[in-house]
């Protein structure tokens, strides 16, 4: 029963990306290119991979095979191909991270902008809630809550992760909007009576475009951090395959203790580590390329 040869989709087959205006400067930046292609690699692997690579089936006779051309990363205790599991394990993690990232960034930006722009009581209330949540260690709060609620749907998991993650981002957004609000072109817009909607969405937010992109990416890394933690703690019921579950299973099997079985746990760990690293590098280089805070003369 030979396992199919995994064919990696050739780049030519990909739809030609329209070189978007902001892409060119980013790719000229070395770490920008590394970050961007790293992220694209994992996204394509997780969303295009499963269409191309057939799922792997248990085969007791192939237990813990060493990495070979047929099984690039070897096999696990049930003889399943580890590489295929990595390919199938990405999508659920990334989807939850995207949803949680979107929720967190949206909540943080709206509350941050409102607190900064309206000020007064609204500002105090939002800040009060944020400071309160910030005092509770993030993971402690998430794990305790996770034990109460049945986390069966990814959206619910994403909500839980985002619920405690927005304060830090809200505070930085609030600080930025506060500084932008004092800018003279905002005062001029108020003098021209252009309206609050115009001022927030056409005058303030466009200036934060690169900042919002960076926060979105970093929000995804926090979401992955929390999600994998919950899964490895066994607080999330297994509905399907993902990197977190691979770690959980490998750990319960004690796969880490012997070199032969180690790949089963190392593969998902490295997959997560590299994906997080690409996201962080991408975020940092967007910051360097689009609003280089550090114009140091000396």
């Amino acid at each position, binding site marked *: 029963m030979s396992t199919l040869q995994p064919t990696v989709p050739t780049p030519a087959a990909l739809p030609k990306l329209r070189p978007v205006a902001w892409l060119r400067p980013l790719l000229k930046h070395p770490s920008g290119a590394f970050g961007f292609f790293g992220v694209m690699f994992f996204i394509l692997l997780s969303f295009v991979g499963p269409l191309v690579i057939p799922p792997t089936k248990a085969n007791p006779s192939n237990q813990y095979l060493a990495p070979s051309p047929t099984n690039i990363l070897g096999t696990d205790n049930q003889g399943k191909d580890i590489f295929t599991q990595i390919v199938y394990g990405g999508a659920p993690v990334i989807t939850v991270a995207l949803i949680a990232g979107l929720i967190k960034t949206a909540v943080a930006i709206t509350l941050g902008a409102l607190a900064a722009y309206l000020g007064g009581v609204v500002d105090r209330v939002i800040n009060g809630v944020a400071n309160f949540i910030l005092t509770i260690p993030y993971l402690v709060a998430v794990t305790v809550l996770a034990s109460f609620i049945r986390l069966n749907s990814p959206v619910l998991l994403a909500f839980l992760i985002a619920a405690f993650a927005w304060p830090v981002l809200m505070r930085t957004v609030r600080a930025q909007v506060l500084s932008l609000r004092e800018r003279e*072109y905002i005062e001029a817009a108020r*003098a*021209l009576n*252009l309206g609050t909607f115009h001022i927030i969405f056409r005058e303030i937010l466009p200036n934060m475009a690169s900042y919002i992109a960076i926060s979105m990416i970093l929000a995804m890394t926090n979401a992955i951090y929390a999600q994998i933690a919950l899964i490895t703690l066994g607080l999330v019921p297994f509905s399907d395959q993902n990197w977190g579950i691979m770690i959980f299973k490998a750990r319960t099997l004690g796969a880490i203790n012997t070199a032969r079985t180690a790949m089963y746990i190392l593969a998902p760990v490295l997959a997560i580590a590299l994906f997080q690293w690409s996201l962080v590098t991408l975020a940092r280089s967007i910051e360097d390329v689009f609003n280089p805070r550090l114009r140091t003369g000396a």
Partner: protein
Amino acid sequence: MPSETPIFELRGVHRSFKSGRQVIKVLQDVNLALQPREILCLVGESGCGKTTTGKIIAGMLPASSGEVLFEGRAVAGLKGEDFNAYRKAVQIVHQDPYASLNPTHNLYRTLSFPLFRHKLVKNNAEARARVLELLELVDLTPATDFIEKYPHQLSGGQRQRVAVARALTVNPRLIVADEPVSMVDVSIRVSLLNTLTRLQRQLGLTFVFITHDLAVARYFAWEGRIAVMYLGRVVEIGPAPEVTSNPQHPYTRALISSLPEPDPELTRSKQRLELRSQDIPSLLRIPSGCAFHPRCPFHVPGKCDVERPQLAPTPGASWAACHVTEAAAVRG
């Protein structure tokens, strides 16, 4: 004084800010009346309240107390269309050319937003024509070169002209210019001042021109008036040529005598008005009576440090808030 109702009036305006526990009294009992098509320069050191006064007139800041009237009607009460009319009639031009334009919009978008918002144009073609007209009006010629440009592609002087054009989009009647030329190089500053003077005459605008530089004030407001402010109060107000060549209030006289002149022999032969103390009192502990009394060489103990002087006629052509000049006027 022409009997037309003043376009803008401040009666007994106070303004204070809370920082932590302390209350900072930035403006105390400011009274100003602006006639249509008049030029008034607000002059004073940093912290004297001239920018706050400008912001209150431009409707950016409410007064803590006192009346703020636009064409005789209290600004605070204006609602709906009246408020919109007031908003369109009073515009502001800022100091920093690098922060006065939104970097993410090109000149066409910056100047067309207000046109569409206030339905002054029906479609893009009309908007484009009006924007080109505005750019020509502020001497940014050939306008077609500038219309697609972004702020970072313009010099400081050019950006200030765009800021003026933006203020003109809604056909205002009063413009508050807060140090519009102080961050622009000397050689280009004059051409900007000349453009503002031409616009003032051509469009019949009332100008509130804020500056710390008495010489610029004297040049710009030659036919208008200068109001000198100190620690949140108007201490002297009068025709520009008079206030600068025949100052009445001791503070104004100290300013005029201390200011260096771009003429070696003249500036080195100037008579200095020696002040009694160097440091400027902080806004947290404003001196009693006349705020200038701790530094004033003509300080009359028992009067200047007790009773706050009101603006009153002086031997010269301007009014001053000073017991000494008031007495001199009565005697003179």
